[in-house]
């Protein structure tokens, strides 16, 4: 079941578009923001609410990399692996994170604190290497600086 708040937020989005199908991505993001990820049940509920087929909606959900169809940790680390960060040795950042957290890309720490994912160019190439944690962009990241960044996220 979608909560009252979720329904209300989706209704608000509907005002900005001429048809209900247009709101699929927004609706999935609304559910994900409150629940962390999009379960099969949530997917069906959103589909029913918008009047689209659940299969169609899953096609949309699985296309967009920032909509999670699997559980993620409390915080999601998005590590830029595109070309400017690659030249500036993003691999050392990835290794430092991997060593510190004991996870690789696509994995979640056993305490459920962090999930680490690769992300395409974050558009902050003048400060490469960069990464995001939740809503925050971290620039000019160094392997030694990783510990301090992680400490901000419980």
């Amino acid at each position: 079941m979608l909560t009252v708040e979720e329904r209300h937020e989706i209704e608000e989005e509907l005002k900005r578009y001429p048809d209900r199908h247009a709101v699929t991505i927004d609706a999935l993001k609304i559910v994900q923001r409150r629940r962390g990820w999009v379960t099969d049940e949530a997917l069906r509920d959103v589909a029913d609410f918008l009047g689209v087929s659940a299969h169609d909606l899953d096609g949309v959900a699985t296309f967009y990399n920032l909509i999670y169809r699997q559980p993620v940790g409390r915080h999601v680390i998005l590590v830029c692996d595109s070309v400017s960060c690659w030249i500036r040795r993003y691999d050392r950042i990835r290794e430092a994170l991997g060593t510190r957290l004991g996870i690789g890309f696509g994995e979640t720490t056993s305490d459920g604190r962090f999930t680490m994912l690769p992300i395409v160019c974050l558009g902050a190439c003048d400060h490469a290497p960069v990464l995001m944690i939740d809503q925050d962009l971290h620039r000019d990241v160094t392997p030694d600086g990783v510990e301090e960044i992680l400490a901000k996220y419980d």
Partner: protein
Amino acid sequence: MPTLDKPLTRNVRADGAPVDIAAYERADGYQAVRKALTMAPGDIINLMKQANLRGRGGAGFNTGLKWSFVPMGPDAPTPKYVVCNADEMEPGTFKDRLLLESDPHQLIEGMIIAALAIEATTGYIFLRWEYREAAARIYRALAEAYARGYLGRRVAGSDHAFDLHLHVSGGRYMCGEETGLLNALEGRRANPRTKPPYPQVAGLWGKPTVVNNVETLCNVPHIVLRGADWFKSLSYTADGGTKLYGASGSVRRPGLWELPMGTTVRELLEEHAGGMPDGLKFRGLLPGGASTEFLVEEHLDVRMDFTDVPKAGSRLGTGTMIVLDDRTCPVGMLWNLEHFFAQESCGWCTPCWSGLAWVEQLLARMEEGGGQPGDLEKMEFQTHFLGPGHTFCALAPGAAEPLTSALKYFREDFERHIREHRCPYH
């Protein structure tokens, strides 16, 4: 010599804070909307044509010409839409972020004028999710613009209505492709659409739609206020205006600079980016994002515009260059680039999803020491099918550009990988 005005970044504050609507209005903000309201739509379009404002998203299409394809008059289909492509996902590109974060009203004003030019009543800013700060600032700016009456049922007190919304994306490079973006706005997978019909005729929900890049739209208010001749005087070349250029990768001072259109590669690299970092030598660069062809030493005096860069065999693209040094492996760099394109292929066209996966595997194997004689020929074979004319959109041709040029300029590096069964840079 061009005048050294910097219209796009004139309001950018050193502390990075955005200008609010009061400060924007004090700097002649929204005066261009008032002026545009006194002009016929066709005159606004002609002004953009005369200014030779070419699309800053990378394709360089004349903005006025693009708008002129929209059906006009009482029999034209309605509603019509103006869409801003703020999906900035081309690897190595970070210019629109600055405009979105530091001066969102400049973009909003440009979109209002675009709407007046094509008689659109609704607009969307299509923003990538990762630009969180930009999203917050755009929401605030939209609320301010509604409160002051620049948006809504009566634009600046006129009879024109224009509603503008922010759409925050769910990811994927394909959303930056014009027709993929329209599918995403409709809540579908961002696969490309067949062209024709072009979006100007049948775009969002089948209605006439123009899609323009952030930097393109940000130029529009200045052209309306100050004219086509002024805009052309900003440039070294026939392509009007300034350009937000950038440099990242191996340079001493990565950054972003608004400079006359047609500034040379050498000036950008040596003066603005401070040259190469200590101990590293220049090897080559991608002039405008991942999907442009390499330029090398012999091209340093090329003017960075939409006319001269193609003569050197590449494209201006987004104008934000990615620099490769002599200690970094070109094969490794290509592997990174083609991994990106293979991953971001939407799977719609066979040469793209199949060809890019193949190319990526060949590069991965080569970089790890398993390259075989004939691999380069296989990649050249693929660049043919990835090239223009075989796919619905420009993703695959874009992916072929760095590869084709790397095989030309760095061939010896590829051959050494195969010959020595290892990466000589490690």
